[in-house]
C-alpha cells in the first residue's frame, strides 16, 4: 500500500488543456473519488497515474518514489476500465491469473491467490466461463479480481460502473468498497456520478476545467462547498438572497446565522441553501406559491415560486407535505436545525 502525491501535473492535448495544474495527495489505504462532468480532466488524471499519458509538467510520487517517467507495466498498479477489458480468449480464471503468470509467480501461490479472489468476488462457480458467457456485473467483478491479483500498490478504477444497469451498479459499488477495505489498497475511483462518489469515497475530489476544486470527505463537500461550482455540482442547491448582519453573520430567509464564505466568493449577496434545509409555514400572507409537488417516497419535493427569491426547491418529509396542494400560499424559512449557511 502506498500514498500518492501529484504535484503541479499539467497535461495538454494539442490546444486543449486537460489538466491545468493538479495537486493531489492521497493517503495510504484511502479511497478517493475524482468527480466531475465529462471533459473536466478526471480521466486524464487517472491515465497520468496509470502511466498511459505522460504529463507535460509536474511529478507523480507513489510511496515516496518518483514514478513520473516509469512505464505502466513497471508501476505495479491494478486498473479496472469502463469498457469491459477482459481478454476474450481466456476464461475468468485465466484472466485473473494473467498478471501472476506475467510476473512468474509460483503455481502454488498463484492458485491460492486465485481461490481467495474468486471467493471474495463470489465468482467461484463462474471461474471457467469465458467473458462472453458472463453478465456485465460479473465481467467487472472478474476485472476487479484481475486488477487485485498482483497485489497492486495502487488500484485505479475508471468509471467501472458506468456500463452497468442501475441495480447492478449499486450492489457492485458496495462490493468494490468492501473488497477495497478488505485488501486495504489505496484506490482512485473516477466517476461522473455524484451519488456513486458520495457513497463510496473516503474523500471526494471535485474537478472542473482541469482543476481540482475541492478535495474533502463527502459530508464536508456537501455541507461546506468551497466554490460555486462544487455547490452546484454536488447535490441540488437553491441560491437565495443573503444580507450581511456583521460579525460574520448573515440574514437568510428571515433568520440570522453564521455564514461560511466560499473560498471563491464573489460577494454577490447569495447563500446556497439545500432543498432539505427549507421548511414551509402555512401562512396566507406568505410570498411563495406551490407550483407542484412530487412524491418520492420518504420525502416530497416541492417546487415553489417566491416573490423575492424566485424559483425554489424544498424537500420535505412526506408526512409534512401531505396537505400541500398546487397554488397553496406559504412562507419560506430555514429549518431550525440549520446552524450555518454557505455564502457564495
Amino acid at each position, binding site marked *: 500500500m502506498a500514498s500518492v502525491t501529484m504535484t503541479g501535473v499539467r497535461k495538454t492535448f494539442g490546444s486543449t488543456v486537460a489538466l491545468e495544474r493538479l495537486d493531489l495527495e492521497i493517503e495510504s489505504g484511502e479511497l478517493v473519488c475524482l468527480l466531475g462532468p465529462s471533459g473536466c480532466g478526471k480521466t486524464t488524471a487517472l491515465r497520468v497515474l496509470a502511466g498511459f499519458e505522460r504529463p507535460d509538467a509536474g511529478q507523480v510520487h507513489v510511496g515516496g518514489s518518483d514514478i513520473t517517467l516509469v512505464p505502466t507495466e513497471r508501476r505495479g498498479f491494478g486498473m479496472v476500465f469502463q469498457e469491459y477489458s477482459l481478454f476474450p480468449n481466456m476464461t475468468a480464471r485465466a484472466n485473473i491469473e494473467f498478471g501472476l503468470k506475467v510476473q512468474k509467480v509460483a503455481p502454488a501461490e498463484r492458485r491460492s491467490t486465485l481461490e481467495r479472489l474468486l471467493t471474495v468476488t463470489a465468482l467461484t462457480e463462474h471461474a471457467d466461463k469465458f467473458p462472453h458467457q458472463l453478465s456485465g456485473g460479473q465481467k467487472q467483478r472478474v*476485472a476487479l479480481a484481475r486488477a487485485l491479483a498482483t497485489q497492486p500498490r495502487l488500484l485505479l478504477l475508471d468509471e467501472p460502473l458506468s456500463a452497468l444497469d442501475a441495480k447492478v451498479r449499486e450492489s457492485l459499488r458496495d462490493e468494490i468498497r468492501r473488497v477495497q477495505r478488505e485488501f486495504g489498497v489505496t484506490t482512485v475511483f473516477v466517476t461522473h456520478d455524484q451519488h456513486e462518489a458520495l457513497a463510496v469515497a473516503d474523500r471526494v475530489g471535485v474537478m472542473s476545467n482541469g482543476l481540482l476544486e475541492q478535495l474533502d470527505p463527502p459530508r464536508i463537500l456537501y455541507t461546506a462547498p468551497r466554490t460555486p461550482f462544487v455547490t452546484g455540482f454536488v447535490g441540488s442547491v437553491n441560491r437565495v438572497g443573503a444580507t450581511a448582519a456583521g460579525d460574520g453573520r448573515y440574514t437568510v430567509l428571515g433568520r440570522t446565522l453564521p455564514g461560511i464564505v466560499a473560498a471563491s466568493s464573489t460577494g454577490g449577496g447569495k447563500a446556497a441553501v439545500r432543498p432539505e434545509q427549507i421548511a414551509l409555514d402555512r401562512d396566507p400572507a406568505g410570498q411563495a406559491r406551490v407550483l407542484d409537488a412530487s412524491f418520492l417516497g420518504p420525502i416530497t419535493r416541492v417546487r415553489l415560486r417566491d416573490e423575492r427569491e424566485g424559483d425554489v426547491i424544498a424537500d420535505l418529509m412526506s408526512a409534512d407535505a401531505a396537505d400541500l396542494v398546487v397554488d397553496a400560499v406559504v412562507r419560506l424559512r430555514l429549518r431550525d436545525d440549520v446552524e450555518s449557511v454557505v455564502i457564495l
Partner: protein
Amino acid sequence: MKRGDVLRWVLIVTVTLYFAVPMLAMARFAFQVVPVALLTPDRIFEGWSVSGLVDALGEPAFHEAAKTSLLLAVFAGILNLSLLLPLAIAIELRAQHLKGLLTTITLLPWVIPPIALVVGVAATFRSIAPWFLASPYSLVPFYALWAMPFTYRALDAGLRSINAKTLYEAGRSLGASSRTILWRVLMPNLGASLIAASVLTGALVLGEYAFASLLLKNTLPTYLEVYQGGEPRAGMALALAVMLLTALMLWIVVRIMRRRGLDVSAAAGAV
C-alpha cells in the same frame, strides 16, 4: 401482403434472375452437348456430361496455372499481412488520429487503374531490375497492393471489435510487455480477422486478370481465357468451377466471422 413486402419480393426475384440466368445458361452450355437450335422441351435432359470439365481438369497446363495462382495468393496474403498487421495494430494503439489517412491510402489501389500501375512499375523495373518482371511471382507485390483495401478493412474491423486499445492498456497495467500482449492477447483474438483477410486476398488473386494479362503471366484467369478460345465448353465448365470455389471460400469467411461474433458487414463490407 403489404406493398413493401411485394416490392421486396419483386426486387429479390429480379436480382436472383439477373445473377442466376446467365449462370444457368453457362452451366447448360458447359455441360449439355446439345446445340441451342436443336434444344426442344423433350430433349431437355439429353446429352448432359461432365467429360468437358474432367478433360479440362486433366490438362497439365491447367495444373501449372492453378499452382501459380495458388502460390501467388499465398505469397500475396503473407506479404500483405506482414505489412498491414503491424501497421494496423500500431495505428490503433498509438496513433488513432492517423486512421483516417490510412483508410484513404489503403483505398488508393482501387482508384488507380491496373494499367497505370503496371505501366509505371513495369517501366521502372525494366530499367533497374529486368529479371524481376520475368518471374510470375513479380505479380506478388501487385496483388498485395490490390488486396490492401480488403485486408486493411478486415484487420481494422477486427481490432475495433475486440477493443484492442483497452485490452492493450489492461495488459500493460498487469505488467505484460508489448510482445506478450501481442502474442497472448491480440493475435488469438484477431484469428478470425486474419483468416478473413487471407481468404479475401486469395479470392481476389484467383480471379485477377488485368495485371497478369498486362504483364504476360500465365495464371489461372489468363489460362482460362486462352483455353476457352480452343475449348469453349470445357473452358466454361472450368470457369464455373473456379467461380463456385471462390464463392465457397467467401461463404466460409462469413461463417467464421459470424461465429466469432464479428460484424460481417463491417469486416467484409469492402467486398
